[in-house]
């Protein structure tokens, strides 16, 4: 973890966290499906102070051609942060961190997407982090699932994502930026609730085997909360208020 000294009380005696949440509470999450005109599918998520936009193109021709696969479609994911999304300006060129996150998000989505129906094509997922505040990969993954569904790409399940972690010796849900910097562990989880499969899992920080088990459990429960909001975003677009 960041290893920085906490300048604030991370968890008070009533079990209230630095941003006023309870230990099993997520930040405020809003997801909207279909927010872009040109993309085949899109979604916008606000996850606490994270603001992330996802656009989907495809299935479409693969360029360069040698990347295409005659047996299946391929998924390509670009996770990118805007220079203005963080406190200190970020160099706009893709960092090693962004390349790694792109890869783990791609691998988290692949089990859900039925790409075998579209051989020789590519589905491109473009994730743009407009503002970052801890937990961007989970927010981005949740939004990307909604955007893929919005693009009409056949899916086995949505991938919902949420982080759990250890803050002030307590396992908590949805670690925010301050807790990530000063906390003891951060475990982002991506989960397909219907298929009961974990498709993204990382961990920074030290956990005993018991805490580890608890942390996975808490995170999976968080994913189920996000899942409901993802479904709501899709029903709102396709069945809500008589539009579309």
């Amino acid at each position: 973890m960041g290893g920085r000294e906490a300048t604030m009380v991370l968890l008070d005696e009533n079990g209230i966290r630095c941003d006023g949440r309870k230990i099993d509470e997520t930040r405020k999450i809003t997801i909207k499906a279909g927010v872009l005109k040109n993309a085949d599918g899109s979604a916008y998520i606000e996850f606490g102070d994270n603001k992330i936009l996802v656009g989907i193109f495809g299935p479409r021709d693969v360029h360069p051609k040698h990347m295409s696969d005659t047996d299946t479609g391929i998924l390509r994911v670009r996770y990118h942060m805007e220079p203005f999304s963080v406190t200190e300006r970020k160099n706009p060129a893709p960092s090693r961190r962004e390349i790694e996150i792109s890869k783990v998000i791609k691998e988290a989505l692949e089990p859900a997407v039925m790409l075998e129906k579209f051989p020789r094509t590519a589905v491109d997922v473009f994730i743009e982090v407009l503002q970052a505040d801890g937990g961007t990969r989970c927010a981005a993954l949740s939004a990307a699932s909604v955007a893929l569904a919005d693009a009409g790409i056949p899916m086995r399940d949505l991938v919902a994502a949420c982080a759990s972690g250890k803050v002030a010796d307590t396992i908590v849900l949805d670690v925010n930026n301050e807790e990530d910097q000063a906390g003891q562990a951060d475990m982002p989880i991506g989960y397909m609730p219907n298929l009961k499969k974990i498709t993204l899992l990382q961990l920074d920080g030290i956990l005993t085997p018991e805490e580890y088990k608890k942390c996975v459990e808490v995170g999976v429960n968080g994913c189920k909360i996000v899942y409901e909001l993802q479904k709501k975003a899709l029903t709102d677009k396709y069945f809500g208020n008589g539009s579309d």
Partner: protein
Amino acid sequence: MASKSVIDELKKTQILELLEQGKRVDGRALDEPREISIETNAIPKANGSAKVRLGDTEVLCGVKIQPDRPFPDMGDKGIFICTAELLPLSHPTVETGPPQPHVIELARVTDRGIRESHMIDLSQLVIEKDKSVVGVFADIVVIDYDGNLFDACSYAATAALLTSTTPKWTMVDDKVTLVDGEESPLPTTTIPVSVTMGKIGNYIIVDPNGDEWDSMDARITITTNSDGNICALQKGGSDGFTQEEIVQCGEISVRVGAKIREKLKESQQGSQ
């Protein structure tokens, strides 16, 4: 490595058929890592080094220790950076040029396992607060490939760091100056051990070899520290794990990791 061929499909079928009988292609038990050999001080010009063979996977780590500027918000801590690279001689599919995403992931996962375990006591590596600190650079190169680079790289870096000695510097007239003849072991607090498991069908196998690596549906790398706690984890591959499997993998990593930690300790004692 990356390209799937008919041969790979046949191999996968064979590997899966064997697993159904409780066997692996090279005769190991499902939770049995390949033989590990560690040669420390392989590069005497480095401050610490180790060549590690994990089956037929071979990697080399050299540690360089030199004064550096601290990170702006970490003026009271030394610097630790770990990199990993696949040499073009390690496999026919490796090309020169900017690193591929899977190599970047390899380097970052190896770095994270060591960093998050707090193996190196960075607070002891300060020359002058906010001005100059000691930088520890563990650079790993892959020499020969036969699967599971994550663990091979982690063991090489850990063994190299355990046997590293650091020179001593002081500030003289605002300049960092080497104090001759004052070398001491690098301050370490714990021994991180990464254990990578592959999932093929519904089977979890420890330390997949090259053929198994090409056949797996998903993988998970879990790093534990000397207290038997879990300090870093990375899931990869295009399939998922159930919650039960994740817990099971955690247990395997603690159990198998403890045995490997003894090997790393032996290599440290052997070099003294």
